[in-house]
């Protein structure tokens, strides 16, 4: 019995290693992909936060100081681009005044685009009341 089984274990182990290796190749590939994907998502989540902060800031600012709304660099490699498009919806008011007594002249569509390291771009759109200016 002992004589017959000598060397068999080694073959068995070799076979096992081969099978495991074959099984691991897609798993490792999957992990590599996922890491990349997750870091991309992380960038997008950060871009989302930056875009949300920017648009909140713009919403406030558009009520007082429309003229000075510019694109800016948030951090190294993160560029925030702000675009406007005057909207002539069915409702552009004539000297309308809101509850705080501010003039509301026109609506503007606002497009905030956040670029991180030049590859992932995240866009957020809304409409704000453009005041004065």
């Amino acid at each position, binding site marked *: 019995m002992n004589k017959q089984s000598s060397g068999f274990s080694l073959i068995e182990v070799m076979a096992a290693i081969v099978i*495991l290796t074959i099984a691991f190749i897609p798993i490792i590939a999957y992990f590599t992909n996922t890491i990349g994907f997750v870091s991309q998502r992380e960038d997008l989540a950060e871009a989302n936060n930056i*875009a949300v902060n920017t648009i909140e800031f713009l919403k406030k600012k558009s009520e007082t100081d429309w003229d000075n709304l510019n694109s800016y660099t948030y951090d190294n490699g993160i560029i925030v681009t702000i675009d406007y498009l005057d909207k002539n919806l*069915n409702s552009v*008011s004539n000297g*309308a005044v809101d509850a705080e007594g501010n003039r509301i002249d026109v609506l503007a569509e606002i497009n905030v685009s956040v670029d991180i390291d030049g590859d992932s771009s995240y866009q957020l759109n809304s*409409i*704000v009341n453009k005041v004065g200016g």
Partner: protein
Amino acid sequence: MYLFRKNESGFALVMVFLTIVVLGILVGAFINSSIFNIRFTSHQENRSKAYYAAQAGINHLKTSIFNEDVQTFINELPVEENLLNSDKSIKYKIELLEDNPNNKKFSSKGLIVVDNKVRTTVSLFQEFTKSGASFIAITEDNSAYIIDENTDWANFNLEPVLNSGDFKGNIYAASWDSNNKVLVLSGDQNGGNNNIFMKNLDGEWIEEHFNGGGINHIYDMTFNQDNGKFYSVNHNGKIHEAYFDGQNWITNATGKKAKNFKDNVNSIIGDNKFVFLESDSFTNKIYTYDIDENSLSSSNLSYMDNIMDVAYGEQDGEQMFVAVGYEDNSGVIYTSENGDYWNEVYGEVDAWELNSVTWTGNNFIAVGDSGQVVVYDFENGWSEPDREHLTRSYNNVEGFEQFVIASSPDPISSEYGGTIMVSKDGGTNWTKYDGADYRDIPKFKNIKKIDNSNEWLKSNWGFSN
């Protein structure tokens, strides 16, 4: 044990398969969690986009609702607008949920549409409420209150905006600069110089004294929105205009003067004409000052009549001036189309003495002794609502649309409060709060509406289904 020792062969393979199964489960769990993470961030991203699309709808509403032509806007609902976006179709959709005259509720839905399927929806709702009529009211003891439609008269506990005794002297009239949104009170200091007090709604009172220059003893002043100036007549009958230039009060004498001017003055602005009354036991005149022409004309009324108040109203191209007063124990009404020629109204109503008249935007309402109320509107003419339970004598009436308030400053005795009556249906039905029962009600001698009433204000908002 014996079995294991005998059958060792294949054990490594079994171990390998076991390892693969265990690893497989672990990897499966990991895949699951990372898929969840990816879905979550992508959902967050879509929700942010949908949220700001919904906000875009709210902002769209915001400009429209403050517009005069709210109705047109509502007629064009639902509005579906696309927002620019490179990778997804983002829309917002506005719907009218509740449509009441003084309250409108909208929903704004932000939608992410992929392949014609709505993937993410964020719903916001926004309510707009019309501010009710509000008024500045001056009391016998020279304090001032801001009152409105919702004032609880039965448990009156408002703080005055000006306390009695804060100014040494009398306050005669309240007025409202609707261009600068400033309250203005006029009075005099111990019978001497005239004062003007002013205050924006949340600021401090500023006191201005005029020494001579004809700006003294102003019993009433009125604001002309067209040129942003106040007009007043002093006790010598001289007409002045006054305005606040942001730092100082500027006053100009117009050079026009009424004769025999007495204390009894009431003034209105209508059609760029400033109408005021002169009345004592010998003369009885209505003066009309034309602001554009800087000219003064007067009409003699029957000397028996005592005219107490005038009002101006216009609706659908029709306009009218109404003056009310009394002769012996009965009410007297004069009307004029242009403020220059006045005709007495006979036989339409049988009223007690009338003391005050106002234009609410829909109708004229006059009040007087013994709870007398007289209503005129351009469509139905003159009418007299039931007055039996109103009893007291009312000296002042002011109204805005459906809400009307009349005051009776004369106390039954010093320990009683003033009486007021209010109508919430344009003068037909009234509720009386008698100073005998509700002793905390101040004794109002002059009530003026604040013209910023009726603005649409944003009230509640939030997420909806």
